[in-house]
């Protein structure tokens, strides 16, 4: 079989607990973003656009939504006879059955998958970020610098640096030190969770790591420090374009709002770097006679009779006459009934916001309504609050 030069392993098993109710029933990479995408569309489209045609997606937490979304991979042109996209859940063997214990362990358990393609390099990705990146360019630098591992880094504002894995580099961008969430950061170069390993190095270090009973089997906590300890050549690849961690309710909301600026902070319209997504089979959206729609993003299947300002609406959202949606993100299939007012909120998929509900407030933290929630008439959700069906039945029971 022909060798693959580089294959990608996408870590999609994380729960994303900081996203609260949003990830109660689905893994974080499956969370909807930007009107018609899901978070995982970004790394997958980046792979396709970077000519990386073999991607293993490592799933563990709530994989159903993700599995059915990825399907055959046709959406991203990844339905190939040799290569393509593979969903790789944890599995049992004759003598053990293990969940993925950590990021490094997840990849270690799939060495068999990697070896069938006999690659020279392995690209490790996470399903947590919104960005457009040419991995091929990074691979080229990795090869040119004869690095053992190349880690993509991005400068972040100093005040938020303590919440990232920070790389300290020398004048040639060689990584000299890695600090996980340092209190006093020496640099503001955050790891983007995008690594390129020379396969031989990955094989050795992940095998050794697996044999170490004290290891947490994590790239940041174990693998990178071990490589540095042994004096391996770790190179920092600087990335300066838009990159947003959408791991919290407020950052997910902000990243959606970034799309509405003119010009947008993050441009999805570049025909040479399309972001692919599985499109629902729906007609164009309809804006009715008395509707007001401004500074917003609207997609197929929506029916708008009410007022929508500064918001992102996903496929098949209905906004009835007299309803108001402002500064909000409304996910697929949700219905906002007349008289309801939604401000600074994220409303998940397939919800019904009944008449005269008040969700979120003009100021304060972002409110969240969980998946498939039907809010009773006149229900109020305060700024920063989260509500789902369980919460409502509890309240009704009381």
């Amino acid at each position, binding site marked *: 079989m022909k060798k693959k030069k580089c294959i990608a392993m996408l870590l999609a098993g994380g729960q994303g607990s900081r996203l609260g109710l949003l990830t109660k029933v689905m893994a974080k990479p499956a969370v909807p973003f930007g*009107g018609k995408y899901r978070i995982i569309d970004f790394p997958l489209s980046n792979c396709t656009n970077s000519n990386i045609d073999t991607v293993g997606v490592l799933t563990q937490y709530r994989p159903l939504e993700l599995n059915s979304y990825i399907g055959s991979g046709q959406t991203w042109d990844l339905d190939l006879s040799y290569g393509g996209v593979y969903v790789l859940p944890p599995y049992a063997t004759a003598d053990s059955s293990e969940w993925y214990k950590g990021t490094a362990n997840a990849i270690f358990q799939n060495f068999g998958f990697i070896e069938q393609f006999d690659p020279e390099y392995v690209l490790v990705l996470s399903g947590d970020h919104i960005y457009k990146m040419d991995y091929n360019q990074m691979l080229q630098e990795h090869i040119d610098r004869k690095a053992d591992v190349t880690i993509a880094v991005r400068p972040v504002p100093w005040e938020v640096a303590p919440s990232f894995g920070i790389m300290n580099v020398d004048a040639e961008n060689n990584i000299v030190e890695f600090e996980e969430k340092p209190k006093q950061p020496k640099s503001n170069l955050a790891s983007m969770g995008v690594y390129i390993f020379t396969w031989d190095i990955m094989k050795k270090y992940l095998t050794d790591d697996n044999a170490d009973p004290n290891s947490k089997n994590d790239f940041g906590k174990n693998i990178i420090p071990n490589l540095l300890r042994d004096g391996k050549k770790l190179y920092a690849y600087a990335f300066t374009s838009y990159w947003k961690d959408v791991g919290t309710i407020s950052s997910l909301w902000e990243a959606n709002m970034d799309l509405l600026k003119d010009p947008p902070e993050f441009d999805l319209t570049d025909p040479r770097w399309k972001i692919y997504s599985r499109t629902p089979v729906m007609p164009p959206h309809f804006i009715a006679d008395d509707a007001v729609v401004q500074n917003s993003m609207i997609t197929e299947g929506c029916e708008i009779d009410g007022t929508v300002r500064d918001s992102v609406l996903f496929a098949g959202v209905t906004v009835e006459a007299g309803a108001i949606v402002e500064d909000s993100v409304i996910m697929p299939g949700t219905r906002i009934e007349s008289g309801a007012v939604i401000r600074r909120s994220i409303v998940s998929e397939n919800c019904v916001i009944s008449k005269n509900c008040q969700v979120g407030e003009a100021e304060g933290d972002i409110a969240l309504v969980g998946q498939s929630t039907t809010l009773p008439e006149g229900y109020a959700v305060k700024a920063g609050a989260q509500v789902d069906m369980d919460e409502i039945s509890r309240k009704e029971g009381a």
Partner: protein
Amino acid sequence: MNDVMGIVYTSKDDLTLRELTSQRAVAAIPVAGRYRIIDFTLSSLVNSNIRNVGIIAQKNYHSLMDHLGSGKDWDLHTRNNGLFILPPFLTRENGGEYNGVLDALRANFDYLRRSRQEYVILTNSDYIMNTSFEPMIQQHIKSGADITLMYKKATPEITEFSSSSKNNHCFLNVDVNNVVKDIEINPNAASYDNLYLNVMMIKRTMLIYIVDQVISHGSHDLYADVLRPFINSGALKIMAFEEKGYYRRIETIRGYFNFNMDLLKPGVRNELFGSNPVYTKTRDSVPTIYRGNAKVKNSLIADGCVIDGEVENCVLFRGVNVAKGAKLKNCVIMQDGYIEDDVELENVIFDKAVTIRSHSRLIGQKQYPIVIGKNITL
């Protein structure tokens, strides 16, 4: 899966559709913001569990091929069956052009013989209808009919045909047992109000036999040389099936315009898109962006548009740009139309990728909308 295959006949370019068909088949005309006319026919077939579909293409089939591709958007890229495009070809017997549907079927006998399904649904693709053919299939099999013709009660909106071209407008006389007693072809004043929808069901082997017989006797017309003699002689059992859903034949610019405007009615949208999905080629556009000066009313808008102007009673296709100060009323703007600032448009149809520069004004009549051809800059 049904034991039925579909054959879709795409008619030759129709001059009454002016610029819209100068470079494409009627079946390939863009409609309803993101579709082509043929999407409705294909989706109806697929939604009726028909998985072997042959498309009889005519000479100008480039745009159709480009749209259909492998058929994957209709789930017709299967290992057996799937989508077959049947363009005219040149042999000792064929002149490289189809002379009507019978001639096209004759030229594609190999495909018909090789197919395994018991029945064929033979349909045109110049109409908008989203239905399931299952009830007709059931009736056809149960009644033991040789041929079943689909019809609809004619109303003025449906029969608003072109007066200049007589394009196989057929009306049926149907008795209480759904047996077809008479067919009128292109009457000036029809005696019956049952409009034949150019959709018929027949056994595959019988279709092959009839086509062979008729062509070898030098005849070419499905309506005058097959249906009329068989109905009149009673040699075959020809039944009718009444379709009750939305149906519009796209035959004139006015008909095209009216259909697009029809989509602004919730009832029509619901009938066409509410239950059975309509599949089409995906384009991976971003969602539509509304800017601060956007004022949009009663309009159907596809993805990928950027709107900062005023839009009323319009259908905007994918990737249309409406700049600040522009005013659009009763317009159909196809893919990638670019309306610059302070432009005023009323009762206008733009084919794909038309650009209109700042401060221009173009006002048509509702009864006779202005049509601007593809890739033109005004």
